[in-house]
């Protein structure tokens, strides 16, 4: 995205004469990152596509098998489960973190005494490594841990279960810590967006007799369009690459009940050593991310045009 923006801004009409003879410095600025990116990003990504058409154990050379891996994916119950879980994750984790983050941003946008403390408190989880977060939450969920003690204190013993080891609850027990972290992050993005809204717009709306709900619906939300695109991209990408928290809490278990596409890809690649098949899963993740984000961007650009 940044590349397209910079090239268009560099070649407005009045500078056309110069563009015939590009400055070597400019060329270097474009080509050097491109070369680095090619080696470290584009080439491995392309290789991933190639590997998805092979059978490869990481030691012998890859053997071409055509679309076998994709055919197998179509009939793989674990993959289907992981896909469904990823969709649940996208909806719950994505949806709730947007709602929560936006809500918190609205509550905390006004400058008043102590608001900085609350903002910082909400943002703190973002600072922790997810692996550390997982350790803390594991203590929370462990048998006779904090969660169980709390439930006992309010007389809900019957609800107590091995949260991370019960296939009914494992996925949700993992979403919670992920949300705990993501809400603070999304809040900061929205806070930045809210700050950028011209107060005159609210002023004018108030003069026209708009109540606070109408101002939210017709002033704040439309003004946040730019931020929304960023938040959506961040949420989708974060959902699809959510791995560390799941891996450190459940490893996708018990028996694949909290498996996401990302954890399934990892275990297929590095535990089962089926790198070809894992590459096929990676391609699916890539296509999913691209589809969601492109879909939104195309719509957003069409509206602007």
């Amino acid at each position, binding site marked *: 995205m940044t590349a397209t923006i910079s090239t268009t801004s560099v070649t407005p009409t009045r500078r056309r004469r110069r563009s015939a003879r590009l400055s070597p410095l400019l060329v270097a600025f474009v080509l050097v990152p491109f070369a680095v990116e090619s080696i470290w990003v584009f080439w491995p990504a392309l290789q991933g596509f190639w590997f998805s058409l092979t*059978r490869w*154990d*990481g*030691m*012998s050379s890859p053997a071409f098998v055509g679309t076998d891996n994709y055919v*197998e994916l179509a009939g793989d*119950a674990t993959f289907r489960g992981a896909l469904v879980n990823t969709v649940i994750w996208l909806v719950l984790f994505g949806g709730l973190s947007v709602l929560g983050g936006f809500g918190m941003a609205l509550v905390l946008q006004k400058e008043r005494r102590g608001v900085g403390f609350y903002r910082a408190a909400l943002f703190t989880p973002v600072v922790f490594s997810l*692996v*550390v977060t*997982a*350790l803390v939450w594991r203590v929370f*969920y*462990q*048998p*006779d841990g904090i969660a169980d003690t709390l439930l006992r204190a309010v007389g809900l013993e019957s609800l107590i279960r*091995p*949260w*991370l*080891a*019960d*296939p009914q609850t494992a996925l949700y027990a993992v979403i919670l810590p992920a949300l705990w972290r993501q809400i603070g992050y999304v809040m900061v993005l929205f806070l930045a967006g809210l700050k950028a809204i011209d107060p005159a717009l609210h002023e004018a709306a108030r003069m026209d007799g708009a109540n606070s709900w109408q101002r939210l619906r017709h002033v704040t939300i439309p003004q946040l369009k730019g931020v929304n695109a960023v938040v959506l991209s961040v949420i989708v990408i974060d959902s699809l690459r959510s791995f560390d928290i799941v*891996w*450190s809490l459940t*490893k996708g*278990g*018990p*028996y*694949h009940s909290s498996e996401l596409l990302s954890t399934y890809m990892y*275990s297929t690649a*590095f*535990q*089962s*050593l*089926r790198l070809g098949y894992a590459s096929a899963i990676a391609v699916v993740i890539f296509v999913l991310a691209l589809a969601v984000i492109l879909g939104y961007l195309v719509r957003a650009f069409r509206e602007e045009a």
Partner: protein
Amino acid sequence: MSDFDPGRRRFLGHLGLAGLGALGASSFLSACASSASGPTTSGGSGAVTIQSNLSSPQAKAAMEKLIENFNAQGKGRASLNTIASETFRTQLPTYLTSANPPDLYTWYAGSVANDYASKNLLLDVSDVWKSLGDYPQSLRTLSTDASGKQVFVPMNNYWWGFFYRKSNFAKWGVQEPKTWTEFLAVCETLKSKGVPPIGIGLGDTPWVASAWFDYLNIRINGAPFHRELLAGKQRFDDPKVKAVFTRWREALPYFDPKGKAYPFQEATTALLAGKTGMFLIGTFFADAAPKDALGDLDFFRFPIIDPAVPLAEEAPTDGFFASAKTANPTGTRALLSYLSGVEAQEAYVKASSGIVLPANPKAKASDSPLVVKGKAMLDEAKELTQFFNRDSSDALQPTADTALTKFIDKPDQIDAILREWQAGAEKVFKG
């Protein structure tokens, strides 16, 4: 923080992060203190590099001591790289296939090593074995690949068993069971006293359940069938495999329900605190046990189910193999000879303070009653197995984890579980 590594004898434990940090710091410090500890590229006659996954403080110190002694002898130079266990496991294929690989690796004997040997990645160490004439035949066979050459040099092994606290068994008025019937009777007694009889730790360490599968299978169907099954020559949906689960089901009501949720380290704590009666586990669990509890610990062998089946025990063997591409095969073999010698093995046992049995028959193991009993148990066995992942592959282990944890949760679905297991295993064998 992942503890997927059934065979590892030492673990970082629950303070893994702190441990890792300390590890990084200490390796940095030692790298400053002596250049020998830092990673070095192996030149033609340069130092022999050892990649070691023995990353717990005691085991790491023990290895450092061995390398120091070797370097002091002047027969060659070696340098040690200690890598966190999980990183080591995932990186091992990369090490071995790289153009300029480290020379020597700590790893496991058996099918895991043979698999690399079949890809011509391991150095032929038959020369080293010429001086190991007094090693038992079982270890020699274990270290020999399909083409008949030795590719592995064992360092030590350990055993699995039902561990318990003597004082607790006395308090509850129960004796070590010898047979399956006696075992179930002990379980019943403990349950009636309100103690969950069988501890287990499947949260984060689901591979612990494989010990149950391994043992029931070698007790009911025998070690040869077990090995064939794990090598893909038998099917997991075979009625003989189902028989294993029928037996297991008899013991399921006695499992600690909390065991699903916590790792084996916490299951160890529960056992020591008397919150569970006994725990089928390898001796490595004692690393986490406080010293005063160690004297109160005892174990009994997995109960006999069918006396007609030749007695087999799990005795995972740890040791070394070398890269076929080593630039310094002479130095590597010299180091292996040193490591397999009496002096090195005794030094390791002493420094590591773990409950392990040295591979060299002349080397003295620790003379604690626990170790004497463990050694006697293994000596009595007709056959030794390694462990699920070591007798098959790390790739097959996750299929077992899924099947076994699901069985413990939903024993009614055993037929479907075994069908899925077979399908999963076929994918792994196919590659």
